[in-house]
């Protein structure tokens, strides 16, 4: 690790030495929303006279080196009116720009030589859906979901009907680094995966990177999803309220001190329990001896405080809490006795972050992030039997409680250094202390007064590990036609007296073509020190986060990608091909499941293997104007091989999807009526089905005279993932009516999920029919579902 550090430091010093020779002035500052002071991330600044540009970083900060003289600057951002400024530069200058949102509907965007066209970006395999578009997409139950909107992009697939899991370029869901305001989240699902934890009203921006990862990212193999919460309105108090058939949510933001400090608070809660409970209560009245009491709710709460401490310093404090609680209790009375069973399942996410931005010089910007992240999953069951007599009452009780989870404490420092117009450096480091609880079960039992009780805990012990990384990357403008981002990410994990070190080179190249398009190629080596132990059949919160240990290797990958990108008028087109090789993939052994980990060491239940994923992605996207949307198509293959699974033979990954297509259309008829529609198609999911049976026998005795054979039927599954479900396809539409009232703007949102009522398979079973014949059936869960939601903005 010391050697790695030396390499990184020397690289940095060499670049600084080169940059010190240049004679220019530095123009730096922030680009923000004129109406609310919200920082604009990824906004661009283009200088016509020197044919150079730059973009704002994750905190809205930009820095560009320009020669002495008069310069014409164009500042632009998606969904905002571009502004052109003329400045006289004779020394370093700090200048903040303010952009106004809302381009007139018919107005074409003045991109000119804007810097943020897809062909200008060195970074490839990166996609962004503007939040304005996310909120307009049709949504199941009227509940807009960020992750489901991402599933409409090429290379990003869903796990199944209604679920919000992301499967990126043949990777597993645990291979996505999901960062909320700089803090990695481990579980991002509500309602068993049907919704993500992100409240769309609280989110300012989200971007997903599927390949060509810059060196500042690490720790996951397949994607980086950055979600940034709103900073809070610096000017005046605003908010939103949203009521749908599944949940209600609110967001309120405003200044604490105008233009100095602001806050944002948002919350969401489902009321499925409030709807279902009265129905259950009326059913219970029909038979007072049997009562059933189901419960389910989820909530999430986001908060953020943004404080501009001085001209060079900003501080952000943010938190996120989210919980799902599911349970089912049943009581049955018979005579003087009563038996009851109570089953519960809950999972909880808690994140807190403090960030400090400091502008050391016009060229050097830093961000220090200190975070705490906790994910816990608990499930328990209690049985009890009570017998009452005239003089006495005896209760026998048994309960078990299973707990697992992970707690991270992280400190991270990032620097942005605008060395000159040819080199933009990013470097920094990260230290994370992980505390894994891979599962422990407490058993308690009472057998009445005459017998001793049980109180014992079984399962894996806590595992503590230390993960650190250093990185340096340089965005290099070699010439007007050739730009590159070259970096190195070095990571190290220490766990149980063992350490793993990895050096991960990253390269992204952009060649501008004479016709205005660009050819891009990238290579990234990634390493991942955590695994998600999951059964591939259904995504459940019982999925277990476990670390790499002395017995379980980390995951690693190498991804090569090449692509072409060009903007035709308002339409961005891109075609990318990729090949990814993954090593150290983790899976349960054949016959193992979550329940094995409850009482036994999880390391003995797993096996490791390799995987490949390759394919082509096509995207045609229109982000602005009256009509917006995109068409995406992916042709891909994803296969895996484990020595101890499927007899060591390669098999298709569960989410290997040969064809995946999506069409998204949004049209604003007027200021009052907005329409959106989506259509998706995907090749059926790979699955293993029971294929045949035979009668097996075991001798009743292995010694003695004439041992008989005890026979039983054995179901033989097919080769791993040898079958496919039917293809998935679905259309959704949404129609929104907006009206401006005196103090607020309200919307009625009518949407229809699965418009043409297609049966999309969720799971498959072998059913025995009444006549004894057998049939394999696919079961869907969501037919056509109309819904209505109400939204207000003030």
């Amino acid at each position: 690790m010391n050697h790695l550090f030396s390499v990184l430091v020397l690289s940095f010093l060499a670049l600084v030495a080169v940059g010190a020779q240049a004679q220019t002035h530095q123009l730096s500052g922030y680009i923000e929303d004129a109406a609310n002071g919200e920082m604009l991330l990824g906004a661009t600044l283009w200088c016509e006279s020197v044919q150079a540009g730059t973009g704002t970083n994750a905190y809205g900060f930009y820095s560009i080196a320009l020669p002495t003289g008069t310069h014409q600057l164009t500042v632009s951002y998606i969904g905002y009116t571009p502004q052109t400024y003329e400045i006289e530069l004779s020394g370093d200058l700090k200048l903040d720009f303010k952009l106004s949102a809302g381009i007139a509907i018919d107005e074409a965007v003045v991109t000119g030589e804007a810097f943020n066209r897809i062909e200008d970006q060195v970074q490839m395999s990166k996609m962004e859906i503007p939040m304005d578009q996310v909120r307009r997409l049709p949504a199941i139950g009227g509940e807009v979901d960020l992750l489901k909107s991402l599933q409409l992009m090429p290379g990003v697939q869903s796990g199944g009907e209604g679920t919000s899991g992301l499967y990126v370029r043949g990777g597993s869901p645990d291979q996505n680094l999901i960062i909320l305001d700089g803090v990695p989240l481990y579980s991002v699902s509500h309602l068993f995966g049907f919704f993500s934890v992100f409240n769309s009203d609280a989110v300012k921006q989200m971007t997903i990177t599927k390949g060509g990862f810059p060196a500042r990212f690490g720790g996951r193999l397949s994607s980086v999803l950055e979600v940034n919460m709103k900073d809070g309105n610096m000017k005046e108090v605003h908010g939103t309220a949203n009521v749908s058939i599944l949940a209600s949510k609110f967001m309120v933001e405003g200044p604490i001190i105008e233009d100095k400090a602001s806050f944002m608070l948002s919350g969401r809660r489902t009321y499925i329990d409030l709807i279902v409970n009265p129905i259950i209560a009326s059913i219970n009245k029909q038979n007072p001896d049997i009562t059933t009491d189901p419960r389910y709710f989820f909530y999430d709460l986001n908060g953020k405080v943004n404080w501009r401490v001085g001209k060079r310093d900003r501080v952000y404090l943010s938190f996120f809490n989210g919980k799902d609680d599911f349970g089912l209790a049943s009581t049955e009375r018979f005579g003087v006795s009563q038996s009851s069973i109570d089953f519960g399942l809950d999972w909880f996410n808690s994140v807190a972050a403090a960030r400090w931005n400091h502008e050391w010089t016009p060229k050097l910007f830093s961000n220090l992030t200190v975070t705490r992240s906790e994910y816990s999953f608990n499930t328990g069951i209690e049985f009890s039997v009570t017998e009452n007599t005239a003089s006495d009452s005896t209760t026998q009780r048994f309960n078990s409680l299973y707990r697992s989870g992970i707690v991270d404490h992280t400190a991270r420092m990032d620097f942005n250094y605008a060395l000159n117009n040819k080199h933009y450096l990013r470097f920094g480091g990260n230290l994370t202390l992980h505390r894994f609880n891979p599962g422990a079960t407490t058993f308690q039992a009472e057998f009445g007064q005459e017998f001793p009780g049980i109180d014992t805990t079984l399962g894996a012990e806590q595992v503590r590990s230390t993960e650190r990384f250093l990185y340096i990357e340089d965005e290099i403008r070699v010439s007007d036609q050739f730009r590159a981002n070259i970096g190195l990410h070095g990571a190290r994990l220490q766990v149980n007296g063992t350490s793993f070190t990895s050096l991960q080179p990253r390269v992204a190249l952009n060649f501008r073509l004479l016709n205005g398009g660009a050819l891009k190629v990238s290579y990234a080596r990634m390493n991942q020190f955590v695994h998600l132990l999951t059964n591939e059949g259904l995504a459940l919160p019982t999925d277990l986060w476990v670390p790499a240990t002395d017995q379980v290797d980390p995951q690693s990958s190498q991804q090569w990608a090449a692509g072409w990108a060009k903007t035709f008028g308002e339409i961005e087109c891109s075609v990318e091909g990729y090949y990814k090789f993954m090593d150290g993939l983790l899976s349960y052994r054949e016959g193992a499941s979550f329940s094995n980990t409850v009482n036994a060491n999880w390391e003995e239940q797993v096996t490791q293997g390799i995987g490949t994923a390759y394919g082509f992605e096509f995207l045609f996207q229109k982000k602005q104007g009256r009509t917006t949307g995109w068409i995406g198509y992916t042709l891909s293959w994803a296969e895996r091989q484990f020595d101890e699974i499927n007899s060591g033979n390669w098999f298709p990954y569960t989410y290997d999807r040969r064809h995946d297509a999506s069409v998204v259309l949004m049209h604003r008829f007027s200021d009052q009526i907005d329409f959106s529609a989506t259509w998706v198609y995907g090749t059926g999911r790979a699955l293993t089905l029971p294929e045949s049976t035979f009668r097996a026998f075991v001798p009743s005795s292995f010694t003695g005279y004439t041992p008989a054979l005890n026979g039983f039927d054995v179901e033989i599954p097919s080769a791993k993932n040898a079958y496919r479900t039917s293809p998935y396809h679905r259309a959704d539409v949404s129609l929104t009516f907006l009206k401006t009232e005196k103090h607020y703007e309200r919307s009625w949102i009518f949407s229809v999920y699965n418009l043409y009522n297609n049966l999309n398979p969720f799971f498959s079973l072998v059913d025995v029919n009444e006549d004894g014949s057998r049939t394999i059936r696919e079961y869907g869960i969501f037919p056509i579902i109309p819904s209505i939601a109400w939204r207000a903005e003030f």
Partner: protein
Amino acid sequence: MKQLLFLLSLILGTTGCDKLSEGVVRDIDFPEHDPQIAVTFMARPIADTIVARAHSSAGILDSIGSKRIKEAVYTLENAAGNSITWGGEADWVQGLGHVLTDVELEDGNWTLTVEAPEFETVTAAQVMPPRIDSTGSYAYAYTAIVEDEFLEEEESEDAYVARTIDFTLTLPDRSDAADYFLVRAQKSFNWDDFEEEEEAEYDGYVVLNPRVEDDPRIEWNQPCRGYLIQDIDAVEALNSLPFELYQEAWGPELEVISAEPIVLEVCAISAEMAQYYKRLDLINNPSGGPLFTEPVLAYSNVSSGYGCFGLYTSSTLILSFE
């Protein structure tokens, strides 16, 4: 416009609810199954009779299921060319299968061939494991100490005995080969025995349990109702395996039941046999239920077929009580 939207919502809502109440289901076409021979033949070197079974495999949608093949003919041949042939209708014993009598198998390699009309002929090969016994070059050893004993005799009821025994077993462990064993109580506990209507005059059961939880060498196997034991890495890895034996017996005479011996079967089995039984157990007893357990492929050492041809040697270990 509002009326139109209301009407549209009503139609869509009704359609959706109707579909939901029906259940959203679609039948899947499934390829036709090509039946293959599924063989079970587990043989030891010397036995009065050994039973072989051949069944046809069946497709998962076949409601009749796996059927016995009475016409199956088995040929067992060793490396020296000596062979035994049996099977067909003549050797079929109802309730048992194809019975081979007066078995005497030599050490070494054996190949089983099973032929049946309309089926592809299948073969399987095995090596006879070393002959296990309480003495000799491939011997086990044990110690047994009665830890606890409870005797009860009442005039109106059966006498009753319960014993707990500290049992330590050492199994042979070759340095140049992997060793696999099956150890089971001959009269193991089985709920089905208690559900039978007629109760025997004298009865009881024995439970064998390892004293160390999650010992990777020892694995319970439900189909065999015993423990599969395997040497792992180290030489003499199977020294002093700690077990607990629990015996219950009841009957009219205390003297008789208190002298009831515990009989254990100690078998040296082939690797293929161990693998076959492990897989059968995983398939039949999914740890997380059928939906949440990683599917298990059936193991077979039968070419182009299912089942297992296994060779084992066995010894009876008797713990007597005076």
